[in-house]
């Protein structure tokens, strides 16, 4: 079942002359992990940020359609705040708020009007889903900034989960983490896909190969090839995909 579909999605920066993404057509399946790969500046992060209208925060112009469950999120009637509640995002650098673990996770639900009596359950469930509960359950009132990078990143995932999203976008979530923390996040991703649709940008090709079901290769703003991860990494159809994943250019 398709969750996200883009039709002729293009993104322009600056005065509209710099094209970051060129007419991308792609269908992303629900409850799958889709990896976006490609060299720096290829458009993969621009594509990711187009999925929850983050590009417009930088003044970018978007053309084409992004359908989430068949509804175009750029149609002018969509409430962007509600949209970003449905589509959570986790960034490259762990970015917890300078407050307690509890308040970090409760932040989103509070903004969206959750009453205090429900927050304890939401915080606990979110931290459990993010595989962090056992490590922090006795320290919920401690400042999040005192935790390790891997723990902070899982906290950010818990924070994203707390508002009950349908889709989670990950922008190089492990690039600042050590191998053990990376392995924990990767394991977590495969657990989370049972409930959520996941799109992940990664520079680590082995990570894309390990965790994703489908892989999209971008180059100079174009979607070059999209398919099952095993096919992309074993038998890519396009020479440019092959050259990139075998390290012949980068």
């Amino acid at each position, binding site marked *: 079942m398709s969750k996200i579909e883009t039709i002729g999605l293009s993104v322009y920066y600056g005065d509209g002359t710099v094209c970051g993404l060129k007419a991308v057509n792609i269908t992303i399946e629900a409850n799958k992990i889709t990896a976006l790969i490609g060299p720096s500046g290829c458009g993969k992060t621009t594509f990711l940020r187009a999925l929850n209208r983050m590009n417009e925060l930088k003044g970018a112009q978007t053309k084409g359609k992004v359908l989430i469950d068949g509804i175009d999120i750029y149609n002018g009637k969509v409430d962007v705040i509600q949209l970003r509640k449905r589509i959570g995002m986790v960034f490259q650098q762990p970015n917890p708020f300078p407050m307690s673990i509890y308040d970090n996770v409760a932040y989103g639900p509070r903004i969206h009007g959750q009453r205090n009596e429900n927050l304890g359950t939401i915080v606990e469930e979110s931290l459990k889903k993010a595989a962090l509960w056992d490590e922090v359950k006795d320290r919920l009132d401690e400042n999040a900034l005192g935790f390790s990078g891997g723990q902070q990143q899982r906290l950010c995932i818990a924070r994203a989960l707390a508002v009950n999203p349908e889709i989670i976008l990950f922008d190089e979530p492990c690039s600042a983490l050590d191998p053990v923390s990376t392995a924990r996040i990767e394991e977590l991703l495969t657990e989370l896909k049972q409930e959520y649709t996941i799109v992940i940008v990664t520079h680590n*090709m*082995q990570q894309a*190969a390990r965790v994703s079901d489908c892989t999209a290769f971008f180059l100079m703003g174009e979607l070059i090839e999209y398919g099952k991860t095993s096919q992309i*990494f*074993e*038998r*890519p159809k396009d020479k440019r*995909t*092959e050259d990139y*994943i*075998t*390290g*012949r*250019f*980068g």
Partner: protein
Amino acid sequence: MKVRKDYLEALEKLKSDVLRMGELAKAAAKNAIDALVNHDKELAVRLLEENSVIDRMEFEIENQCMRLLALQQPMAIDLRTIETSLKIITDFDRISDLAGDIAEIVIQIADQPYAKPLIDIPRISEISQGMLADCLEAFATHRIEKLEDFSARDDIVDALFGQIRRELVAIMIENPRAITSASHLIFIGLHQERIADHACNIAGRIIYMVTGERRKLG
């Protein structure tokens, strides 16, 4: 911009070593039959001595493959090349072992007249030499057109071996004193037929390396 210079050099070295091992195995198969045809015991002895080079190459190439897999995380065509290399060097090793088995028989029978004139055994050799040459060319160039008829060529080899066996069995029935010599030739025919089977295995692997499609030939 080309990157990963050391990696690409290591891959090129692997490919060139696999080709060299293949050439040596092919030469061993040819020399075994040349030694038989020419009653040349010296060539047979030399072949056996040189087989240790092929054995060493197999280990060396395995090590190269393991290093590339462990350290470079190869993908796509590179991964398929390494998988193919790991598989076909076993076939090359088996071909050189079979050539060695033929050489050992030659050492035993070269001083005597053979049970029958050698007609079909050199024919099989010619066909399997052609198959091995086409495999090595395809491995080097990634052009696989010449591998497409390997099943048909293998059928011809099987038919020729069947013919050799029938003729030699008839000779053994007619003349029990020829049993030893005839059975040696049957074994040589069998080893030749197995060499063609290995060529089919190698061709199937090279087709996979080039296209990503797994096919069984022969």
